[in-house]
């Protein structure tokens, strides 16, 4: 199958000032991310806050331009943001955010919001089309007359989905689409996304910190740490037998009703992208790091079984160390 979306070596830097007179510091939100998404498939992006998963979503939609690297969509390079060409393309790729209320205009009725993409892209609309669209996401046609505050959280997220689906996109970037919802509603929305994918063949970039949700939704999963993909593969392979020490800690941190045993508790905090450790960015928290990890950035490359991993130890290039002392911590503070 041909790739719908391809991103190669995406780098995104921001400048940040510390204090009013501080010198600008370069923050690398993304540091060379490549990914491929096929038609009708789902790629799950997991990682902690600040790892660059949302930035990746914004770059592949062209909401921001990468400082390095390129994005191709349906084998064409992504046009420059703001151009007429890009606007036309944007009807083929849509975004769903975490907070449905924040993503909607509170003063517009649901029907008007859902029909807005048609208006923007110069298409005719009829109340019947709006009704059909609302029904396809499990809302009632009479919800069209309601305002966002009159709907529950789950219904709002359905309305946001209806709006995203209006232009029949080939790609849906879902940035934490279920995190703001209650547990019983999360399952409803995940089921709905799967149904939509089965019916319309839309590809999903599913960004989440919830590994359970990612396993449920994804055909492939990529684990990110500090602006890089550190492991990528089939969800069950990655989640049952993670190869990268960070992925292992992440999987072991999933709260588990049946487990009462030990889990890997990582030391330290998620690192600050403004003070990126040298070498492998994970080495200050890594339980198996050794000297080479602090010096050389491991490359994301396939193992014998095809799984992509970026770790010197997981590739057997060096024996597992016992972690490094953290002198960089004091300097960063």
């Amino acid at each position, binding site marked *: 199958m041909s790739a719908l979306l391809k991103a190669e070596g995406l780098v995104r830097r921001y400048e940040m000032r510390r204090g009013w007179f501080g010198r600008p510091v370069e923050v690398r939100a993304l540091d060379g991310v490549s990914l491929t998404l096929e038609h009708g498939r789902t790629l799950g992006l997991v990682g902690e806050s600040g790892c660059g998963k949302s930035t990746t979503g914004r770059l592949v939609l062209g909401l921001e331009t990468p400082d390095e690297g390129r994005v191709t969509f349906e084998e064409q390079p992504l046009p420059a943001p703001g151009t007429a060409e890009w606007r036309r393309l944007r009807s083929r790729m849509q975004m769903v955010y975490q907070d449905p209320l924040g993503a909607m205009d509170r003063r517009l009725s649901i029907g008007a919001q859902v029909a807005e993409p048609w208006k923007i892209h110069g298409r005719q609309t009829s109340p019947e089309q709006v009704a059909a669209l609302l029904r396809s996401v499990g809302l009632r046609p009479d919800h069209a007359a309601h305002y966002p505050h009159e709907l529950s959280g789950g219904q709002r997220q359905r309305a946001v989905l209806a709006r995203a689906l209006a232009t029949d996109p080939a790609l849906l970037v879902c940035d934490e689409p279920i995190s703001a919802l*209650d*547990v019983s*509603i999360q399952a409803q929305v995940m089921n709905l996304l799967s149904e939509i994918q089965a019916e319309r063949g839309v590809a999903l970039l599913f960004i989440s910190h919830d590994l*359970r949700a990612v*396993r449920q939704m994804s055909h492939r999963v990529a684990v990110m740490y500090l602006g890089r993909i550190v492991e990528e593969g089939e969800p069950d392979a990655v989640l*049952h037998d993670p190869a990268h020490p960070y992925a292992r800690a992440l999987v072991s941190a999933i709260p588990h*009703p049946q487990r009462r045993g030990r889990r890997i*508790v990582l030391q330290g905090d998620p690192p600050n992208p403004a003070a990126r450790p040298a070498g492998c960015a994970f080495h200050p928290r890594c339980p198996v790091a050794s000297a080479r990890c602090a010096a050389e950035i491991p490359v994301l490359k396939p193992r014998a079984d095809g799984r992509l991993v970026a770790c010197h130890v997981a590739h057997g290039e060096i024996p597992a160390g016992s972690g490094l002392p953290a002198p960089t911590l004091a300097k960063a503070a």
Partner: protein
Amino acid sequence: MVEPLVAIRGLSVSFDGLPALRGVDLTVGRGEAVALVGESGCGKSVTWLAALGLLPAKARVSGSVTLEGTELIGAPPAVLDRVRGGRIAMIFQDPASSLNPVHRIGRQIAEALRLHRGLDGRAAREEARRLLDQVGMPDARRRLDAFPHELSGGQNQRVMIAMALAGRPEMLVADEPTTALDVTIQAQILELLAEIRRDTGMALVLVSHDLGVVAETCERVCVMYAGRIVEETAADKLFTGPAHPYAQGLLAALPPMTGPRRPLAAIPGGVPEPWAMPRGCAFAPRCPRRAEACEAAPPPLAEVAPAHRAACLYPGAAAVVSPVPAMVPA
């Protein structure tokens, strides 16, 4: 039976005539770890805000909350001031908004020490440093002079826990303490709470929406729905044999980590709005085992097995067939 540390009886709360809590009975023993789980708006936080007199004046509170025999509902401020932070401490979801952004954290911890232990000056600072050490803050002495914005979310939550421990409370109410944190940091904080319980014998009430977090941290779990406790049992029992259809539904809706991936068994519909509360069981409109009797009156929390209570007329295994006679040909 030994007298419980905290006993809540018939606690009800309403805001502007709309019920938020509709009769909660709950006890917490000394040193026990109890969880309250449920979805947003089910009353799990309101229960403890009401118990500690932290609700706004417009809230109508009735029922009784006793701390070793002392009534807390309607108690004079002088009594409550000694209880809050001194005997029962509380921490919240977002540590950054619970801390004062313009004061150094050492001073904020020292304030709690002055109020509850009468410590001042050098002694307070030394004790604040010891507390930061106890909650696993690296480089505690220097962090005393840090402002909240200089610390990460996980470190701020550690500061909150240190402040909560300042009054040597007998019980800590942790309201979604890890919800705003990353999963690897959540693991650190849960480990810390367990460690503090081991060391101090403090009771812990964990308010959470996350069944997994609850399972690992607590011995007893109360599941709440629409302002009531619908099931109460030992944590491991809840996950192996829940009796209430809502608890069963919550567990079934959790995506599995193993096995084939199939559509999730989502609970249909949504939580009833407080102004449209069903007359009978609040869960009946979403319940697969709904029968006519469910709509008559809210079912009481009744024992289904020793130390296992559920508020359901037809409690039991998830596979139980509907008690409503199905339309079968005779």
